[in-house]
């Protein structure tokens, strides 16, 4: 469902070259490609990081950590090689933005990677695509080959005397490796299990070297920051939330698709204006604002700006930009179950609370939804989720727990309606399980 869509409010910055054939390096160059990296070479590492900090760009993977700050953590001197890692393990349900970038503008990822390398003194970048994106690997590999052919990658890039290599790689199909340290394990050929931190990747990362790891969208944004200037970029968004981002609208929405909108764009407007509202004149029941791991919002909670701080204040998270609309026909127990099925399936199994917790949540929700629920189940589900929250090895446990707690809190009555052997009052309300797929 990654449709190329537009709307008058769209600010085509990251999506500037979408649909214009920029997978070819010549087209990319024609559309201001590889100019930013040359600018960055001229600026030098410190100025690059200053520019990045000025842009107010925050990580697009979900946590929203300021990118410039992250880059500044990498030690200048290092006995081991430094690396730049592109996290293209886009697996958060309802998120399909990186995919468009790889599909339409792979060179922007390469260019962003080189700039990150320049900033921290890394000589090598790895572009890691999720296992299910294997078909995009060809596009990425072609782009890398073209960049090598032009001398933009390899020895002495752009005649600067600086070397930079890039390699692309795919995972084997695990949500867990979207977690940065698990991705490094995976890239090193091991089980995709997160690492103990500290040390953080900026100090000890891939192969033990200091490593910058950023979401693909984050790095694809970098060349545009240098194209228009950090300060200009920051102005596009709200305070402490610079620029634009790709929002992926899905679920019960008239015009699903990926829209590039300024940070802080009003959610209600995003749904009813940009997305064209709920199909069939049905009532909106709930909104998942930033991918399946973010707590659900009620219709009365959606008059907020979509930036990290405002969504946070509303009790949820901006997350990965995957906005899912659920109309009145959706059974929230079934939705909670569908969500938990995902996390149960994707739990890496390393730590007890996530491994066992997601499984018992799935089992309890399955039974509850099917009409086998007993009174204590509802509290048990909440208890389980609450006891996972903050107790797991990595944030995947939180990702499973947070939405579950919100479902029970905000839709308790629906859970209760399933009790006493009644089962689901909605019958197959999710007509397409694929809503979240």
């Amino acid at each position: 469902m990654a449709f190329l869509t537009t709307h008058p409010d769209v600010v085509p910055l990251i999506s500037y070259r979408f649909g214009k054939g920029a997978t070819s390096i010549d087209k990319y160059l024609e559309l201001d490609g590889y100019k930013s990296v040359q600018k960055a070479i001229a600026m030098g590492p410190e100025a690059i990081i200053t520019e990045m900090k000025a842009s107010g760009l925050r990580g697009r993977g979900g946590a929203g950590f300021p990118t410039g700050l992250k880059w500044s953590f990498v030690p200048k001197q290092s006995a081991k090689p430094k690396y730049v890692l592109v996290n293209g393990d886009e697996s958060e349900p309802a998120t399909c933005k990186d995919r468009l970038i790889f599909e339409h503008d792979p060179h922007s990822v390469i260019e962003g990677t080189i700039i990150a390398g320049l900033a921290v003194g890394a000589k090598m970048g790895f572009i890691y695509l999720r296992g299910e994106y294997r078909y995009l690997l060809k596009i990425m590999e072609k782009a890398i080959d073209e960049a090598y052919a032009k001398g933009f990658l390899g020895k002495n890039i752009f005649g600067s005397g600086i070397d930079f290599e890039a390699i692309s790689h795919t995972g084997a199909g695990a949500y867990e490796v979207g977690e940065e340290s698990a991705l490094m394990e995976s890239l090193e050929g091991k089980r995709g299990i997160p690492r103990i931190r500290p040390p953080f990747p900026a100090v000890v990362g891939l192969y033990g070297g200091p490593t910058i790891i950023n979401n693909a969208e984050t790095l694809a944004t970098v060349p545009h920051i240098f194209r228009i200037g950090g300060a200009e970029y920051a102005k596009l968004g709200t305070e402490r939330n610079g620029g634009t981002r790709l929002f992926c609208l899905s679920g019960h929405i008239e015009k699903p698709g990926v829209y590039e909108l300024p940070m802080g764009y009003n959610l209600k407007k995003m749904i009813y204006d940009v997305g064209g509202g709920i199909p069939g004149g049905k009532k909106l029941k709930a909104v998942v604002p930033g991918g399946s791991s973010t707590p659900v919002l009620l219709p009365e909670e959606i008059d907020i700006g979509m930036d990290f701080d405002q969504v946070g204040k509303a009790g949820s998270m901006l997350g990965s930009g995957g906005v899912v609309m659920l109309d009145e026909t959706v059974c929230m127990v079934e939705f909670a179950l569908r969500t938990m099925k995902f996390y149960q399936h994707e739990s890496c199994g390393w730590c007890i609370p996530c491994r066992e917790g997601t499984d018992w949540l799935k089992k309890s929700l399955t039974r509850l939804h099917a009409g086998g629920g007993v009174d204590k189940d509802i509290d048990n589900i909440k208890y389980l989720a609450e006891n996972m929250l903050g107790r797991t090895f990595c944030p995947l446990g939180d990702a499973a727990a947070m939405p579950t707690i919100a479902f029970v809190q905000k839709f308790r009555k629906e859970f209760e309606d399933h009790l006493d052997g009644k089962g689901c009052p909605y019958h197959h309300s999710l007509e397409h399980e694929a809503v979240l797929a």
Partner: protein
Amino acid sequence: MADVTFTVDGKKLTAPAGTLLIDACRAAGIEIPAFCYYPGLSLQAACRMCVVRVEKMPKLQTACTTAVTEGMVVSTETDETKQARKATIELLLGNHPLDCPVCDAGGECELQDMTFKYGAHESKYVETKQHREEQKWSPVVYFDRPRCILCYRCVRVCGEGMDVWALGVENRGVTSVIAPNEKDHLDCEECGMCIDICPVGALTSGTYRYKTRPWEMNHVGTVCTHCGDGCKTTLGVRPTDDGVEIIRGDNRDKSGINGDFLCIKGRYAFDFANHKDRLTKPLIRQADGKLAPVSWEQALDFAAKKLGEIRDSRGGNAIGVIGSNRTTNEETYLLQKFARTILRTNNVDHHRTADYAAFAAALKGHAGREASLRDFLSARAILLLGNDPTNQHPALAWQVRTNVRHNRARIYVANHAEVKLRRQAKAAVDLPADAYASFVEYLAGKDGGFEANDTSAAFRDAIRQEESLLVAFGSEFRGRDILVLVDFGLSLPNTKFACLGDYANSRGAADMGLLPDLLPGYVPVTAAAHFAEEYGSALPTQPGLDLVQMLDAAGRGDLSALYVVGSNPATRYGIDPSALKNTFLIVQDMFLTETAALADVVFPAANLYEKTGTVTNTYGDLQLVKKAADKSGVRTDFEIIVRLADKLGADPKQLVPFGKGVRADFGQTRGAQSGEADRHAVWLAANHLEPKLSPFDPFAILDEIQRLVPAYDVPRLNLLTGNDEHLKSELVQIDASADRRDLVLPSNDLLYTSGTLGRYSAKLTEVVESHTILMKPAEAAAD
């Protein structure tokens, strides 16, 4: 690192910066629960049991990955942490079979203990538990999958600890399961460390599973009877209708010299004690040429009568005595004393597996230069010449690996074979099998004809730059080669040495004078005056026949009697049975070995697990052996020797100078299973009263050993409480001739073999047979 001060549960604590919070707390007596944390192995932070509240941190922190910092304020037992731990246990129990009533680990299970502590008493789930069938991974390792809590201790101890890497994790999420990397079986060293380290009953032992409950056994910490490392093993024993049987061997007492480690032999190879061929009655060869059971009295009378006749008619030189590598120091010492004072012969020897005499002589005047097994855990650099510790000294190999992992010790390996420890080596040199001596000369900068190359040159340079070095050498070195090696080592700044021999008390056999030319403490028989004084009896002063000479003499008809104690030279030395036909042969052993089968009298003997005494490992670490098991009908070698002496008309009090008291209780059987005797002994020793009350009391002999062999005069109390004591000074006090005949014959045991004794272990045999590609031992070893 500098110390930091921090607060835990209101207590001010101090520890070096960087110490893990969990270690700092445990050191201060604050227990923090953990399943996955195991000291010395890599950190996991997977079980989430050790979560604590650290002030200024948003979430609970795992104490196993949090380093202490100045001013840190920690709470370990709050409602929040208790709830977190309780919830974790509830989750673990969700799929756990709760088959505690039949589980091997019931009663010694960390999951049980944690459930007891945190009270996860309510079943929150109604769904069917996830079940998986139990698997047999090897003859000694079984895996009951539903009991597993995925703490990954087994994976780590196998990989990091053993450098075997036989285990991994299969699948992900709730379907994650520990699995052998060889799919359905273990391709490993069968050490059983994974079982030992398992906090629950998921990994169970092929020898012990479903046999009993832990609390129905008594647990006796003693010393393994197999290789020369002398690991402490804890034997689980219980009474049977004919004694006390061993049903489990493990390392529950991690305070031993072996730390966490125990190999297949220490853990499983105790079953020879219950072998169907075990002798329980004395045998005498009858007129028809067949051995037939007789009473102890008859056998002792007969043997003593014949020995006495031969001694009195042909003299002591017509009698030979061959001792054992597995009897205690006291028995070994007693045997040579018996031979020299009662049989009046110096024809005393044993199957030598290393040239300890030459080693002791080389170290004369260099006290403190012999390495303990413990030293391998902390040495900065180790030079390993010859031997294959992985097979022959598994505990040594463990210490080396641990040292490399924890301290980045530098290991240098020079060997003619592809020994596994090369993987740990900083540098390695391939040697021709006959080039060890010339290589040492090369290291010392002399031209010994060694063909050098860049590798050996770099090796030599690195060795010489070491500021301290531990040199361990195998039986490839003998006689003067050892002297050359020690001289080279002493030319370096700070060197210690270890001489690697084969069996539990091979070292003791040499130290205690089971040699034709040397008395205990390597005193030449020509300088026996102070021995004669102590013994109250003159000793023969001419060196006797060595083992090979005795066998030759027997073949010639010049040896009228041969007394073999716990040894099986017939196979190892290729004796033609007819060669002994004119020799009166007495054998005391557990089994009718090839040698015993030729005997005129056979005494059924107890094994090392059925007696008390001391043994010395190959590194010179002295330890107490405690009686764990019992078998009706058999007697200790100690008792048999004393009774033979008695029958020969000798004064037992002179042979065993036990106390003058009147309470002659036959101390060896006194309450030993309950540990009462040990506690009693500790109490007596603490009050300077030693239990020298019986002619069968090994401590009476230990007293004498300590008077005559100064190196053995180590604190007794420490031994009695189950600790090891390194011999405190150099052994050799009086120079002996350096030109001695080289009679070292290594037994070439592998991990799963243990000389003649190993053949009677059904479990070892089963393991050998299950490893189809395993090298079979080249030769049948003695003892």
